């Protein structure tokens, strides 16, 4: 059963969440816990911060115990993860380009990259889909629905 196996992802995510819990507790201690009018701004965060630390340590500890029992680790398919992360990185770059180039150009570039590089379609097809997609967005949002899109230094 996969759920009884050691998972490195669970250990790492548990540690990250434990750190987040500690951060929440530290921050919450700066705010009032209980005042004359009742609970203060630090009351609720302190308790869910503590709960987060306890649960995250349970998750991490449980997994480390499984590793100690020489259970098999759940293998990660890094090739698949790479596809998804490359797509996300391209999306992040397109967001960075929103300010200088505007939505239409950055969206066209992102679409071109996804079609040509991620899905390995011919370049002319990728170009046509990218330009057609950007044009479609322009027709639907600013023109038909009067919804404004991020505009770049070229004015579109």
């Amino acid at each position, binding site marked *: 059963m996969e759920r009884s196996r050691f998972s490195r992802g669970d250990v790492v995510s548990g540690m990250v969440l434990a750190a987040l819990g500690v951060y929440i507790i530290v921050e919450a201690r700066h705010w009032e816990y209980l005042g004359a009018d009742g609970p203060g701004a630090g009351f609720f965060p302190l308790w869910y911060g503590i709960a987060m630390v306890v649960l995250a340590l349970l998750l991490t500890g449980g997994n480390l115990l499984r590793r100690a029992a020489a259970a098999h680790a759940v293998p990660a398919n890094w090739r698949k993860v790479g596809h998804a992360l490359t797509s996300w990185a391209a999306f992040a770059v397109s967001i960075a380009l929103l300010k200088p180039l505007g939505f239409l150009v950055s969206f066209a570039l992102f679409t071109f990259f996804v079609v040509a590089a991620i899905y390995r379609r011919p370049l002319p097809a990728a170009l046509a889909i990218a330009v057609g997609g950007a044009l479609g967005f322009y027709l639907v949002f600013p023109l038909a629905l009067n919804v404004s*899109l991020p505009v770049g230094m070229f004015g579109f």
Partner: protein
Amino acid sequence: MEVINGMLHGFAVALTPVNLWWCFVGVFLGTVVGILPGLGPPATIAMLLPLTFQMNPTSAVIMLAGIYYGAKYGGSTTSILLNVPGESASIVTCLDGYQMAKRGRAGAALGIAAIASFIAGTFGVIALMLVAPPLARFALSFSSPEYFALMCLGLAMVVLLAGESLVKALLAMLVGLWIAGIGTDLFSDASRFTFGMTELLDGVDFVIVAIGVFALGEVLGNMETREETQMLPVPKGLRNLLPTKQELKDCRFAFLNGSVIGFLIGVLPGAGSTIASFISYGIEKAVSKHPEKFGTGVPEGVAAPEGANNSETGGALVPLLTLGIPGSGTTAILLAAFILWGLRPGPLLIQDNPELFWGLVASMYIGNVMLLVLNLPLIPLFAQILKLPVYMLYPVIFGISIVGVYAVSGSLFDTWMLAAFGLLGYAMRKLDYPSAPLILGLVLGDNMERALRQSLMMSQGDPAILVSRPISAAMLFLAAAVLIVPLFRKANAWRIKAIEEQL
């Protein structure tokens, strides 16, 4: 009498040309979304939510609800034709639907799915109409301690059935509470968890998190693979889409079973349409004279889960509209939509906004008729959507996500947050952290903190107020039981089995 007057008022609202149009747009989009594997109703509603801000709230909720229940009709199409469920609630439909299609009865299977959806969907709306007003009247007696306890119970139920690991589901919920806490404190003016950024003083917009976690997380997960699926031929013409008299006769009990089970399961927070469809399929098989034939292409095996899946919508709207407590990711997004439009779902919604409540209920009757008309003759046309290549679809989803987020605030900072939450959504999928508890924690976080702090203010800081009032004590006891029971081996085995059925 109240119900009859309400329904007359509701039909007067729902039958206006503008609301009929938005109802049609909603159910049409819902059908398309349901057919497309990898794009679910919560993602679609989250993406389209910002575009509804300029609309009349009644029209907007009619459209978004149309997407919600329309997707359930569409979800069966891919289950039957491709053996690939368009959404998780249609997984069971694959068992017999796909087998019927392989035997040349694809049209009949699609027809039975549409008829079962119509019957059960209508049953769910009738039950909603009858149950919601008295429940809302009962909830009028609730005060802050009861609301806090109710939210604890709702979150506990969602956590219980959200993922294989209870610890991960709880952690996801706590992260949701933390995100809800970012910004200026409700009672004092203290800024919390803002990292010194003025952009975070107003908090993190729910729309950004919902689109990032649901839409982008889902699409990034789908972009890992480039698998092609083989579609079976769809028969053309209405005659081939109608089941035979014998098939309809065989499905009599399945229609009723799906309708009742779907509604009852829908009212429970966290259970959802996937569990409803599995339970009704199980009951249908258990009472059948030929249980051994289930899984080989029997029409009851399509009718029962499809009915339950659709009736569940009416059930899920009961706690949302009368108590303001969502039971799933999709209803959490609908709750956020209500709040963004300046409305507050809860006991006073029916009283204060009868136009919206009864208009929505009436529109669901109309929407179910629209869906039956759309789904019976136009299924071959809708099935063509499946030929749309994913490399064209996915960039469009990314684009709509940016437009949706930018439309809310006009801030590029929010688009960066969108990217961050998209990555979080993907990481959660990869690491098996369920997203529904995070979204529910986020939506309920502010209200939960407010209710807790108001309760403690009422009692001068004495937490005994939460357990000294009978209703709140009962709900807190139930919430604790819901989280403690899985610690026992047998109960946890049942819980994991129920979740595995969902996945």
